């Protein structure tokens, strides 16, 4: 198992177009890293540079301390699962999986054993004689996976491998991939634009935007301590609600004024906000941190716009001024569109952001 180091990595496609502007990343042994970001953020380009499919414009890539920046893909000790599987249609499943082993001149018996092992691991042991054209999308995906696993790579790359599967199969494969990772302990990089996929699988998530890293952290880090408004808005469904607020410090208290409500917080827990006295800032509140409060202590009362039942819970949307605010309400609560309901924030889970830089303002109250 291996470590991976990306130092000052950059890729420029043409004079004006950068694929990746600057990328510094250390991946630890056995770690499962997810590169997450909207399309065009450079996550796939980064992976392709690590794979050796894309030439590097600047920077270095070290695998297990060895500089692999300029060596061809086949000598890097990596393997990869492609978005469209890229399994070879003219070869049987067996030949697909055995391809690299044959090129390595592994003895035939050993190849047969290794192929069977990996095929069994991804549950396609019965399909070895078939051609890819005769398989379903899910089975093809498993062939691609088996092919990548059979190599026993130092580093395992996955480029949006689940994006072509239907929703249900995707969730199943997530679990299986995680189990396989725990079994093989291969250092893995997984590219996706699906934040729930990232959250459920990653040891650490690397959030990218416009060719740069925005935040690196565990799923908890990026969820509860989002580095900026982009991350807070990108991670979590429904996304974080943002409120523009004017801050004023009044003795031991801070009051945050919004057009629809006024929050009063103790200064000792939020002393970092002292600097914003008299200024505007943004407070972010996740949907599950907005709770129904039918008492008179409710922060604000508003009409319900839409209710989206999800089974385990329901998402309630309100229209606050011009902005849509979404909250998560437990399933047993009866809420109907048009109802006037009081809400309150979970004050321990407030996120503050600088209005200009959109960066997080750290507070002592953070968990």
């Amino acid at each position: 198992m291996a470590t991976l180091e990306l130092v000052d990595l950059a890729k420029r496609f043409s004079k004006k177009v950068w694929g990746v502007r600057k990328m510094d990343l250390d991946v630890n042994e056995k770690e499962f890293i997810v590169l997450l970001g909207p399309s065009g953020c450079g996550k796939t380009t980064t992976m392709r540079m690590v794979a050796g499919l894309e030439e590097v414009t600047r920077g270095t890539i070290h695998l297990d301390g060895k500089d692999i920046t300029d060596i061809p893909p086949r000598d890097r000790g990596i393997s990869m699962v492609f978005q469209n599987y890229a399994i070879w249609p003219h070869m049987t499943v067996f030949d697909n999986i055995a391809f690299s082993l044959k090129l390595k001149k592994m003895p035939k018996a050993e190849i047969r054993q290794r192929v069977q092992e990996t095929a069994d691991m991804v549950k396609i042991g019965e399909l070895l004689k078939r051609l890819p054209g005769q398989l379903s999308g899910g089975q093809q995906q498993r062939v691609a996976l088996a092919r990548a696993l059979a190599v026993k790579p130092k580093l395992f790359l996955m480029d949006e491998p689940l994006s072509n599967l239907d929703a249900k199969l995707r969730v199943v494969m997530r679990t299986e991939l995680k189990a396989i990772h725990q079994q093989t302990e291969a250092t893995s990089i997984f590219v996706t634009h699906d934040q729930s996929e990232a959250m459920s699988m990653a040891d650490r998530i690397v959030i990218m935007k416009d060719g740069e890293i925005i935040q690196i952290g565990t799923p908890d880090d990026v969820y509860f301590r989002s580095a900026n408004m982009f991350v807070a808005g990108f991670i979590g469904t429904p996304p974080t609600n943002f409120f523009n607020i004017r801050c004023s410090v009044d003795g031991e208290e801070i009051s945050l004024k919004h057009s629809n409500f006024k929050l009063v917080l103790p200064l000792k827990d939020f002393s970092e906000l002292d600097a914003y006295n008299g200024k505007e800032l943004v407070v972010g509140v996740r949907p599950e941190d907005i709770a129904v409060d039918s008492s008179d202590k409710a922060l604000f009362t508003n009409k319900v716009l839409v209710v989206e039942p999800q089974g385990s819970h329901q998402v309630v949307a309100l229209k606050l001024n011009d902005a849509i605010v979404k909250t998560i309400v437990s399933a047993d609560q009866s809420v109907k569109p048009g109802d006037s309901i009081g809400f309150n924030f979970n004050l321990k889970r407030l996120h503050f952001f600088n209005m200009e830089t959109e960066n997080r303002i750290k507070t002592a109250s953070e968990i």
Partner: protein
Amino acid sequence: MNSALQRQLRRSAKRTSLYIVLVGILFIIIFPIFFLFSFSFMSDYETYSEWPKPLVPSFKADFKIDKDTEGYHLYIFNKSENDFMPFGPLFFSNSEKDVSNLRKFIKLQANSKITDQKIEEYLRIVDKESKVEFSVRKDLLANYILFFQVINGAARAVLNSLMVAGATVVIALTIGGMGGYAFARYFFKGKNLLKLSVLFVRMFPAVSLAIPMVIILARMGLYDRPLGLSLVYSVGQISMSIWITASVFMSIPISLEEAAMIFGTTRVGAFWHVTLPLALPGLAACAMYSFIGSWNEVIAAVVLTQFNPTFPVVVYKALVGSQGQINLITAGSVAQAVPAIIFTLIIRKYIIQMWGGVKV
């Protein structure tokens, strides 16, 4: 960084060698075509009296006239000799200055136009100063004009070719287009067999088909008529049209037609209002492809025409029968090639798209 520098060096070395190879290939492709064009602008004198032949046509011809006891002598500047050379056997004494004859000679041999007055003016200078040197602008298109004047029926042949190609386009696009639509939208028995018809029709030599076709066309009263020839060309062009139009129609999602049908038109209406307008560029490309095919075709035309040859036949007969000089023939060839080249370049995207869908 050292490795970054190395990488850059390696990359630029790779790119340089790539472009050297590319330039080499382009040279091989362009080089002969360049000479085809170049020759078509040369005068008889340039093509036949200079050796080695010039690589590019000149834009003017330089002349010298001098005078001795016999009379006036005309010289032309020869680039390969780098000197004035006697031009024509023609010198005349003081008494009989046949100026118009000289003008015609210069025009025919050097593709240069000069007026009688100018010649007389120059002759006066010779009288005064014993010699004169002057240059005359060359008429670059002279060969093209001459080709149509000298070669019998060349202009008529162009018209024939246009009619043949036009009729072929109409026949091939109508019949082939219907077939192509069937290929793109329906499953039917014999589909694969029909798809291979392009190959089948080529297996029997086209020339040999021409022999029985003469009889068939004669019976229909179409022998040696443009329409008759286009009926023969259409055999090959229909199968090409099926391939091209099938790929064109396939690229238009059937859901668009279905949407039109849901919003109130019939299947035929959906075709007319939705599919056809979207397919129009592709169909135009298909039309151009058929046009080029029959415009360029010479083999069947040689057999199937008698008094109404098409343009390629005229050029072919001029070449094989040595009716014309090479600069005239190249002019005829270029005149024939230019429309074909332009059309091919316009539809190049569709040509690739078409072949993408073709598999045996």
